[in-house]
């Protein structure tokens, strides 16, 4: 459960401004997407939100508390699953708890009930290399969730998966979100994915990167199965494409 507020964040490297005056808001239990081309500063913004980078200007608040430049509050998940090959799946997902000072046994116990929910039952004692790409991403998400059940940052988490696996992961993700109360910031360059999953979409574009437009997806959740084939879906998609093209002119 969390509200995240990013206000007026600007960050530059070596005199080159990467992102400029970015303000976004994520309300409790919402999924907010940042949509934009690769190299548009999405990842820089992520590192600012997670506290790994200090912005030149601007602040980040989580539930009203300022967390600008402070790691340890918000965790993220990348396209690479970043599971440690030498730890079993259960020890991988429990790692954030162990880092937080919990005993290994206790951490495993706390992680155990979520395996079912995340569709990972039976993989506890396996090593990541024994899992398929989709399963590894599930484990990575569970690890993110066990770190913080408030807010997760997902940086193109499904973009390395093949189309069919990606589709089933989308459905799975929406299912899981029904059960757990997690706010999500989602980075993607895939318009379909953004419209399908989000409550709110921020379009990031230009150089330096700034918010071009924000779009609210009014479709109620859980989304119907054929949402992607509807008129509404297409009109959202069209509007986003137009905005992106406009910004490139």
């Amino acid at each position, binding site marked *: 459960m969390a509200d995240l507020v990013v206000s007026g964040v600007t960050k530059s490297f070596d005199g080159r401004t990467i992102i400029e005056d970015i303000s976004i808001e994520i309300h409790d239990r919402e999924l907010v997407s940042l949509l934009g081309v690769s190299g548009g500063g999405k990842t820089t913004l992520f590192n600012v939100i*997670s506290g790994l980078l200090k912005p030149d200007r601007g602040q980040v608040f989580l539930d009203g508390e300022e967390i600008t430049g402070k790691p*340890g509050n918000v965790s993220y998940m990348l396209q690479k699953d*970043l599971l440690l090959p*030498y730890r079993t799946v259960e020890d991988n997902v429990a790692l954030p708890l162990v*880092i937080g000072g919990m005993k290994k046994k206790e951490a495993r116990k706390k992680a155990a009930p979520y395996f079912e929910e995340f569709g990972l039952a039976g993989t506890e004692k396996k*090593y990541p*290399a024994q899992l398929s790409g989709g399963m590894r991403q599930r484990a990575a998400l569970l690890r993110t969730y066990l770190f913080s059940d408030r807010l997760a940052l997902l940086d193109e988490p499904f973009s390395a998966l093949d189309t069919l696996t990606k589709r089933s992961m989308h459905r799975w993700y929406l299912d899981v979100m029904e059960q757990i109360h997690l706010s999500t910031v989602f980075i993607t360059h895939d318009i379909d994915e953004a419209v399908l999953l989000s409550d709110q979409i921020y379009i990031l574009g230009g150089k330096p990167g700034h918010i071009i437009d924000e779009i609210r997806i009014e479709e109620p959740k859980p989304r119907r199965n054929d949402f992607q084939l509807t008129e509404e879906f297409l009109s959202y998609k069209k509007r986003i494409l137009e905005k992106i093209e406009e910004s490139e002119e």
Partner: protein
Amino acid sequence: MKRKFQSITSRLWSAAALVVIIVIWQVAASAGLVPGYMLPSPVEVVQALISDFPLLMEHAKVTLAEAFLGLFCGVVLGFVMAVIMDRFDRLYQALYPLIVVTQTIPTVAIAPLLVLWFGYEMLPKVILIVIVTFFPVTVGLLNGFRSADRDMINLLRSMGAGRVQIFRYIKLPGAMGQFFSSLRISASYSVVGAVISEWLGGFNGLGVYMTRVKKAFAFDKMFAVILLISVISLVLMKLVDLLQKKCMAWEQTEEKH
């Protein structure tokens, strides 16, 4: 399955090559192509090995004790060096070239000096072995530590992990593969190092025995001890492999979906 079969056939080839060389050697010796006092035949070497076996074992005990002690100290030193050099970048820049230089000093040249300084007992031998064994461990571990995945480190930092935790959960386990490769090299160096240091002074050990039989022109015994040293090195390397398999259990499970 196919892979296993291939590894068996490749072993067959190397075994066959070994057998061919030994047969040629035996035939050459039996036919009198090489005088027996210059090059003993394989059969004579084995006979010497069997007849001298109890004596050889006595000497081997001393050599192995030196090798183990030296290897242990070398690995500990190598580990400590790698950890602090990884932690402090200035130390890395200052010490790395020096460490490389220590490896260019010929062991045979420094061994007599060590004997002069530290006497004929165990100490100079252990020091020599430490000098030759710490290097592979330090370099291997440093490479392992430094090739840790940046994204992985950032992820742990985002979870609030400190330097020690990042070392414990990412750097150290990530460097295990390289550590064991280095340990395999160091293990074989430790035996050779012990023998070389014994050549130049001492009362017991395979190196001492080697100089004695050489002076007596007992080349069959000389070859027997060489054979024994090779076997000991191979056994040590195999032990390191077994240890690695035990410590890195996850490697066994890979590619078995």
